[in-house]
């Protein structure tokens, strides 16, 4: 068994490095953060579906997750807080042949950017939106988010959160998204498959990825070690594909319901309807 070794060859790189701006590693994210595995699952899904690098666009907003667009060797846009979705819509409508992805955080997508999210679902613009939901504002030091579970502590809810949190898959479903799923950043293989499945569809596709933030969320909520939240996800998760999204609200003492919840086929996208309108007007 002496073939089993840890190789220490620095010249050899991780398989993700062909997609990475390697010179920028290590990244800024904290030990145990879920953004890294989520991005790797997304990269594997791109490889699995066979989308070439030059077709991939990564748009992000502000926050920890916002920095992701600068780490990958694709066209990356680190925009303003909350505005990643409309920025991506503009880009995609002009160049519909590109694979445009918004990967951003829960605060960015559901607090300051919440209005854009529901309208993008309603319009069914052709975007894949991945939300790394870590239940907190990580980069600014752990303030209350619209996804913080009831009762949890943050730097701006020091006595416990009194606000109900968003059930984001339900919000996406109710607003008309054609694909809705939820995984965690430790369910990386299922997440990869789910992202690949979403990539092969058209229209507004949404995947929520529950993601550990040991430093800004865990430390204040009795999950201080880098692997505590991952352990919580492992032990509390139940996979229920096709679940009614109204029943997947995250509550601290209840199981976390994961799965591919919604898949609507045949709903026309904004772009398709715009092109149809153009034909009609030009044919007059």
């Amino acid at each position, binding site marked *: 068994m002496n073939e089993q070794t840890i190789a220490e060859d620095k010249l050899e790189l991780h398989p993700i490095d062909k997609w990475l701006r390697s010179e920028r590693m290590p990244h800024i994210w904290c030990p145990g953060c879920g953004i890294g595995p989520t991005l790797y699952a997304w990269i594997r899904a791109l490889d699995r579906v066979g989308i070439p690098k030059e077709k991939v*666009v990564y748009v992000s907003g502000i926050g920890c997750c916002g920095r992701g667009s600068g780490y990958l060797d694709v066209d990356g*846009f680190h925009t303003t807080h909350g505005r990643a979705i409309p920025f991506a819509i*503009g880009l995609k409508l002009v160049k519909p042949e590109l694979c445009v992805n918004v990967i951003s955080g829960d605060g960015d997508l559901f607090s300051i950017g919440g209005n854009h999210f529901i309208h993008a679902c309603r319009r069914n613009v052709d975007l894949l939106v991945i939300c790394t939901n870590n239940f907190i504002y990580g980069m600014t030091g752990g303030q209350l988010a619209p996804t913080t579970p009831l009762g949890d502590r943050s730097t701006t809810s020091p006595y416990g959160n009194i606000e109900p949190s968003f059930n984001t898959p339900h919000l996406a479903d109710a607003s008309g998204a054609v694909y809705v799923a939820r995984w965690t950043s430790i369910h990386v293989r299922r997440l990869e498959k789910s992202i690949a499945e979403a990539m092969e569809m058209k229209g507004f596709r949404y995947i929520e990825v529950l993601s550990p933030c040991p430093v800004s969320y865990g430390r204040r909520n009795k999950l201080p070690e880098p692997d505590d939240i991952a352990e919580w996800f492992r032990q509390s998760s139940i996979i229920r594909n096709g679940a009614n999204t109204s029943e997947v609200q995250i509550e601290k003492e209840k199981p976390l319901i994961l799965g591919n919840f919604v898949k609507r086929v045949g709903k026309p996208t904004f772009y398709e309807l715009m092109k149809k309108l153009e034909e009609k*007007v030009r044919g007059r």
Partner: protein
Amino acid sequence: MRKAVLTGKHFWYGNIAIAEGAIVAGCRFFAGYPITPASEIAEHISRRFPEIGGTFVQFEDELASIAAMLGASWAGAKSMTSTSGPGFSLMQENIGLGVMMEVPIVIVNVQRGAPSTGLPTLTAQGDVMQTKWGSHGSYEIIALSPDSPQEAFNLTIRCFNLAEKYRVPVILLTSETVGHSAGKVVVPPKDKIELVQRKKPKVPPEDYLPYKPDEDLIPPMACAGEGYAFTTTGLTHDEKGYPDTTAEAHEKLVRRLNDKIRRHLKDIVDVEEENMEDADIAVVSYGQVSRPARKAVGMAREDGIKAGSIKLITIWPFAEHVIHRWAKQVEYFVVPELNYGQIYLEVKREAAGEAKSLLIPRMGGKLITPTEIYREIKKVSEK
């Protein structure tokens, strides 16, 4: 199928002239939100774009509209929005992103009475300083102001040309009166209209640095999907586009963003001077007010007063070299504007020590008449 360039003579509202000017300039992406008194621009574009193949989206708000324009411009489209005060205020954060990422876009602000909801249907020139300083930080921006439908048409094209050339958001600072007054607009033949396109990289992708400027301080612009795999951010960044949040990197970047405009003042700044050769009194005006201002100068000349007119077509960057030059000749600058003193402050600053300045303020709502301006010229001439 209707054509993009409607060569010929038309009788158009200012707002329609702006929409047609944008189409002539090659604008094929419009994102906006309804607002009085700018809505006719969006309405007209929504009718025209399906005819000529452009993307029109009425977004959920102005925040989304300007973000989408930035994205569309990064995909290679000439992009525009139209709005008025309240919407312009909402756009300020992403105007800053446009400055920082160096994105060509055009924003039309049809000014109305303000602050706040103010006078939605009545005219004003109250957003002059907001146009310069509305987003946070020290930056230079370009703004042009038309006084008629024909000029609105012409300047809309120029806005796109300047945006593409300097990679900066450009604002057409017009007003309700210009937007809602009709006049003759001549659209020249397509081949007689000069259009500027953004500089593209000449190096292979592996050598491309998205923020490495040429000698003119403007970096060539790759667009999404062209194989350059570039990254861009609103954070202070280096030539690679990577975040570099050090004081040194900030100094270097922000200095260049300002200098790329300041060093090209003479190319950007456009003024129209009338009766200035022997003038003792210069009336400095812009936009709609330049029409009564020129009339008032004519009235003063009939009276034997040596008055002249300086009409600012470019509002920002400010025509400081022009005012500086005339300050050595004239005794007085008279500045009528529909606000409580904005361009007046710039004129006064440039004239300081050489000539005096007088503000004729009028809050939003109604125009200043030629007679009102003439009376002030006369008073000044008697001093």
